[in-house]
């Protein structure tokens, strides 16, 4: 669990916001929406991987199931 992932997620968040504003400003709202959704999906993929690791670790430590 390195600290880099947090920076990556923050940077993606900033980038998606900037792209969103640029696309909305120039009138292409559907593409702005698509970019936002894509950003959310990408971050979700990263987070899901980490949550998976978390659950595996908890399972191993407590030997529950």
């Amino acid at each position: 669990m390195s600290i880099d992932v947090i920076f990556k997620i923050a940077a993606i968040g900033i980038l998606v916001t900037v792209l969103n504003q640029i696309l909305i400003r120039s009138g292409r709202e559907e593409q702005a929406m698509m970019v936002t959704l894509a950003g959310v999906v990408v971050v979700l993929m990263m987070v899901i991987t980490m949550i998976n690791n978390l659950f595996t670790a908890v399972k191993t430590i407590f030997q529950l199931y």
Partner: protein
Amino acid sequence: MQFIMIKIIGMIMVLISSTLIGYLKSLKYTLRRRTIRAILSSLNILITEITYNQITLSEAFAKLSETSESGIGKLFLIASQILNSNEGYTASEAWEIALDKVGDLNLNQDDIRILKSFGKGLGNSDIYNQEKNFKLASELLKKQLNDAEELSKKNEKLYKNLGVLVGIAVIIIFL
């Protein structure tokens, strides 16, 4: 240490290439605007020469091919060559063949249609009608110029910024 170096080199390459792609896509709009402006001024010179100097179309085209900017000069050059080759083409036929032969002019379908209809009226009637034909084409082209300027204002900056930002996004997500 080596790993970081290669990563940095890769990042720079991705950034440069995506910026260039954005720039290339924005060039289309810039070039179209510039080309329409060049055509307007060249046609202006053409009609002035025809009205006040009474030179032949082939000479006028040859003159124009030297003073026009970039792509437009080629169009006039081909037209004047066709007229000079003495194969019996009329002026409007030569204009149309030159339009087809000149390859990529960075213009829209609409612009080319305006040019083609201008060519149909070329050399077909007297000076007064030539002027009217030219005025019509010039008005239409001015409207296209406005259109192109609007589009270009909206899209040029957009594509350039998009290129840079997508490059950064790719770097962040994959590296």
